[in-house]
């Protein structure tokens, strides 16, 4: 784990879970797998606090545990998973676009709580939705359950690993920590619950859920205090599936930019057809015949088979070569990701160094290896400037130098020096910079908020006073008076603060998109 990643993890943990969890989490990320006592000793926190922090981290799937011999349980942190926390708003927004408000709230609850049982999720979401509806209307549990089931069917929500059903004939004390079992086929199996009820506005303890539990306790009571029917079956958000969705989105929009709307629709159809059948790490999708694609096109598209074939050939012949045509169409996911990563690099060079540098960069990319003189000739840029730009990019590690010795003694006077772009290493470098950027953005935002803390608190107090006065029916003049407690320059300061914080937040979201592309690319190269 690089320093930049650790710093970012620390900031994220601190913002979302507080200082104690942050201390424990960062310690685990730094040092790897450790048992409980060692953690407490090394971080200097009390055992109770370490226990609390570990519970929170495990609940949110950020830390896993393993039983070693002699009964020692060791805890290990998942740094990558902590970095995902940056992407939570994007996941929730995606759920909203796909499954509207209900889906959005389900995913939000799952992400905020780490793991939950289905009945808990349904109840909470129904309550929340009911709050936002007009008086008298309530949200039915059945509707929420339906959306939940649809989320599971499309694999956006998956089951957590289960405690294996141990036979009670085991002699000796139970193990200090259960080994959880992941059963592939049960991962998306929804227990048969018939949750009947409606969302509640206030917190009242009426009976709401009756249900048929899955296996263990087959009783059916309408008792208030009955055990929850799907006890032990926990669900979590399946982040890999969301990532697949983002990747498909990126590819479709890239095709739309490069060609036209129809071809992007074709690509979208192909991707959707292989959505559930392709495992997440595969370099290419299942082969599809053009007939299948034709049949699966969305209803609105009245293109004939011939036109479809033409489009497919066009896509296959594209030099960016996202497709591979051999009686059926594959989709080279790895290559697609590579193209996306390259495009990201190009645009970064353009924005950072200017369009002429970008021209040189693209040139070197295309020709793979070039000498200094050749760069000047091909790019049609005067020698001095070309040299300057090359060195600038070289110093920032976008371009690297390849030596080709003419003689076995590698004498510098008799060696070719060629400029080249190594996409993988440039991508890694850029990713590292992205992590640093996000860490800087978060720090700056926290600094800005801290600087203006007094002002923020004052404005919050004033707002509270105004709200309470409005509730008790105060006059216009009194409200005016209270509002004037905040002077005009202070108001301006608040406005500036708000604008800055919004900007910084938007930047974080933007950088996270780049992080996603680069990470996907690097991951796909590691898997080959």
């Amino acid at each position, binding site marked *: 784990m690089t320093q930049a990643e650790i710093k970012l993890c620390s900031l994220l943990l601190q913002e979302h879970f*507080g200082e104690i969890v942050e201390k424990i989490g960062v310690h685990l990320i730094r040092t790897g797998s450790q048992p409980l006592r060692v953690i407490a000793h090394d971080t200097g926190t009390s055992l109770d606090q370490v226990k609390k922090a570990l519970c929170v981290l495990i609940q949110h799937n950020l830390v896993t545990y393993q039983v070693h011999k002699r009964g020692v349980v060791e805890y290990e942190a998942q740094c990558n998973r902590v970095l995902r926390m940056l992407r939570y708003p994007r996941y929730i927004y995606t759920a909203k676009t796909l499954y509207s408000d209900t889906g959005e709230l389900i995913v939000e609850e799952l992400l905020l709580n*780490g793991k939950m049982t289905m009945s808990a999720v349904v109840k909470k979401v129904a309550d929340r939705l009911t709050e936002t509806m007009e008086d008298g209307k309530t949200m039915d549990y059945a509707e929420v359950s339906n959306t939940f089931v649809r989320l599971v069917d499309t694999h956006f929500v998956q089951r957590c690993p289960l405690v294996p059903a141990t036979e009670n004939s085991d002699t000796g004390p139970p193990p200090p920590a259960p080994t959880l079992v992941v059963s592939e086929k049960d991962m998306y199996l929804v227990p048969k619950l018939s949750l009947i009820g409606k969302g509640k506005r206030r917190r009242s303890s009426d009976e709401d859920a009756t249900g048929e539990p899955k296996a263990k306790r087959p009783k059916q009571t309408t008792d208030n205090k009955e055990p929850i029917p799907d006890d032990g079956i926990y669900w979590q958000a399946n982040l890999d599936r969301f990532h697949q969705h983002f990747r498909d989105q990126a590819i479709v929009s890239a095709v739309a930019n490069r060609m036209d709307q129809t071809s992007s629709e074709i690509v979208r159809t192909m991707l959707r057809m292989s959505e559930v059948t392709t495992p997440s790490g595969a370099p290419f999708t299942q082969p599809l015949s053009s007939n299948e694609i034709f049949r699966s096109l969305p209803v609105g598209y009245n293109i004939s088979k011939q036109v479809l074939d033409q489009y497919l050939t066009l896509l296959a012949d594209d030099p960016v070569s996202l497709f591979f045509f051999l009686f059926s169409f594959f989709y080279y996911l790895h290559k697609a990701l590579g193209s996306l990563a390259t495009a990201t690099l190009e645009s970064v060079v353009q924005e950072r160094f200017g369009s002429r540098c970008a021209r040189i960069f693209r040139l070197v990319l295309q020709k793979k290896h070039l000498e200094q003189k050749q760069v000047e000739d091909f790019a049609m840029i005067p020698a001095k400037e070309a040299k300057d730009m090359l060195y600038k990019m070289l110093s920032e590690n976008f371009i690297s130098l390849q030596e080709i010795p003419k003689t076995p003694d590698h004498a510098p006077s008799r060696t070719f020096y060629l400029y080249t772009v190594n996409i993988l290493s440039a991508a890694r470098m850029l990713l590292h910079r992205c992590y640093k950027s996000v860490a800087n953005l978060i720090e700056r935002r926290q600094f800005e908020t801290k600087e203006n803390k007094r002002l923020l608190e004052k404005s919050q107090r004033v707002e509270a006073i105004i709200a309470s006065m409005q509730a008790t029916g105060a006059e216009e003049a009194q409200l005016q008076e209270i509002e004037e407690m905040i002077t005009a320059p202070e108001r301006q300061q608040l406005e500036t603060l708000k604008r800055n914080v919004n900007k910084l937040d938007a930047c974080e979201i933007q950088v996270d998109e780049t992080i996603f592309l680069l990470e996907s690319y690097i991951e796909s190269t590691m898997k080959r």
Partner: protein
Amino acid sequence: MASRGGGRGCGRGQLTFNVEAVGIGKGDALPPPTLQPSPLFPPLEFRPVPLPSGEEGEYVLALKQELRGAMRQLPYFIRPAVPKRDWRRLPRELKIRVRKLQKERTTIILPKRPPKTTEDKEETIQKLETLEKKEEEVTSEEDEEKEEEEEKEEEEEEEYDEEEHEEETDYIMSYFDNGEDFGGDSDDNMDEAIY
């Protein structure tokens, strides 16, 4: 790679390789030597790309800020604990409160999973019994809180919520101005009130 040969100070340094291969022609001046670390905020040569605005961007932004606020309110956000005090110097009645909390802490053992909920339920029942023995300290409000907690113990996510409940009830109880625990609450408040 290239080693800088001798000849410092006599014009340009003699280098062991043909400099033209890397593009420094004859008579070109080398860039000035760097004498200090690069500035902290180097001037930007080009304007940064504008941020995406529009409905989606704003919605995601609002979502992000909401999430941040929401996570702070959840029980998963662990606030730094109240510092330990020297109990010899304080009245004994304050100490009982801490002991109750410690008893609860011991029930939160290493990773808990559903098969363990039955065990934990027994322990919490025992704990409740011991608490009932200290009836003089426990107010009626606390009993209600315990019952609510018992219901919530079915869901294990909220088991370690109990402490937060306990600590939160400090505030709520102080509203009702209970004579017994008034000393304990004011102790907490005193610490925070010292500016």
